[in-house]
């Protein structure tokens, strides 16, 4: 009679397969899973001081995300992702000097913007004895924008599976065809491309800690300006570099884990930035966690950023009053509640984000009046079967 496998051996094998880096590098998922998340993203209205005339309301976006993951035979896995967003509101159109000489914003469209975005991606991954390799294709469509992209990545384990080297590549080919192009003398049809390569190295440090370092390089070319801004002219090429470091540490006595991620970024628009993400996963019971999160972000301004548009400047010279190219800092905090029951899990998240030039770690020569504050609420469910 065949002896049943010991429960401790099964638990040990399951733990080893579920290791970060190992689960991803060596074995397809053991079960299929279906996930859905609904989110509402709401930006704060601007004040009449910032916008003397017209719309004050900014974006309100509902986001639906779906993900299906399934093992395919012994060595493969299938990944299907789909997203749909509905958005309404308005965004900054151009910037002028107010009566006191300070910049004020003029918002797009008296009746606001209504748009939707749908995205689907399909991926397959092969898991071998010492690593994995896989790829995905994706398609995203809006009323005025279309993106087609492809990505590939491979991981290889070394050093008794304590070290993982991952290389990933991606390419995106995007088309831009702005709404009301004739009416507002916007570009009719433009294209842009983006290609990325990223290399990461993960290392298990001890039984409760692991570390990852990564470098990514992205090249963009084509039409990189914002067609909806009245005076926006940016270079037609950009190179971006991001250097990231992540730590995971489990505190046994507290029965909680710290996730810490830091990224340094720079590009040849002249922007440099620091991003620090901290999350604490507190296990309250075996099936309930509370996760507070804190994020700090700061960037310098692009070389050609101006907070008051110069309409006498020719479009051949780079210029933009886009608040996202200004120097600012942003602090965000959030709280998640995570519960598991049987094959189900549910996550409820609330997040608040506040950008302000006063939070900047870089010199702010020209503060933007259009910085964003937003609140986000999400509810996600996952079913494993």
């Amino acid at each position, binding site marked *: 009679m065949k002896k049943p496998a010991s429960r401790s051996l099964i638990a*040990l094998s399951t*733990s*080893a397969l*579920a*290791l*970060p*880096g190992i689960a991803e590098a060596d074995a397809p998922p053991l079960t299929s899973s279906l*996930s859905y998340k609904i989110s509402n993203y709401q930006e704060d209205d601007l004040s009449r001081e910032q916008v003397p005339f017209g719309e004050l309301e900014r974006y309100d976006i509902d*986001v639906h*995300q779906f993900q299906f993951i399934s093992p395919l035979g012994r060595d493969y896995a299938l990944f299907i*992702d789909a997203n749909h967003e509905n958005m309404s509101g308005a965004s900054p159109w151009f910037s002028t000097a107010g009566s006191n000489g300070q910049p004020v914003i003029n918002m797009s469209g008296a009746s606001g913007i209504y*748009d939707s*975005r749908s*995205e689907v*991606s399909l991926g397959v991954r092969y898991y071998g004895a010492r690593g994995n390799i896989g790829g995905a294709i*994706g398609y*995203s469509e*809006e009323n005025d924008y279309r993106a087609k992209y492809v990505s590939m990545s491979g991981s290889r384990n070394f*050093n008794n599976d*304590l*070290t993982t080297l*991952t290389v*990933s*590549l*991606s390419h*995106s080919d995007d088309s*831009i065809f702005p709404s009301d192009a004739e009416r507002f003398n916007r570009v009719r049809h433009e294209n842009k491309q*983006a290609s990325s390569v*990223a290399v990461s190295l993960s290392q*298990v440090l*001890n*039984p409760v800690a692991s570390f*990852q370092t*990564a470098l*990514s*390089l*992205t090249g963009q070319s084509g039409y990189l300006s914002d067609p909806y801004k009245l005076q926006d002219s940016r270079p037609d090429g950009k190179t*971006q570099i*991001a250097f*990231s470091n*992540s730590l*995971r540490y*489990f505190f046994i006595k507290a029965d909680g*884990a710290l*996730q810490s991620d830091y*990224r340094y970024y720079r*590009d040849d628009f002249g*922007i440099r*930035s620091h991003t620090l993400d901290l999350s604490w*996963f507190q296990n309250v019971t075996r099936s309930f*966690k509370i996760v507070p999160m804190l994020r700090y*972000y700061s*960037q310098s301004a*692009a070389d050609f950023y101006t907070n008051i548009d110069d309409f006498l400047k020719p479009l051949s010279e780079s210029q933009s009053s886009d608040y*996202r190219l200004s120097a600012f800092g942003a602090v965000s905090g959030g709280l*998640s509640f995570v519960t598991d029951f049987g094959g189900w899990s549910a*996550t409820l998240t609330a997040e608040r*984000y506040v950008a302000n030039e006063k939070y900047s770690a870089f010199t702010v020569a020209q503060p933007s009046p259009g910085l964003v504050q*937003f609140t986000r609420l*999400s509810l996600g469910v996952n079913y494993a079967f």
Partner: protein
Amino acid sequence: MLALLAACSQVQPWERGYLAKQEMAWDSDPLERALNDHIFFSKEASSGGNTAAGGGCGCN
């Protein structure tokens, strides 16, 4: 580099229980990460990180 990493303490398979927990994964909630990446890509000038980028969007 790999030789240097090999010199790190050798964690045996039976010592990896804490490392196997969901909260110790590099990406413990893929949908949450994808949503955050999309929001910050739309509202800040920086992008890129541990993996190669996906498709763009007309997010203004």
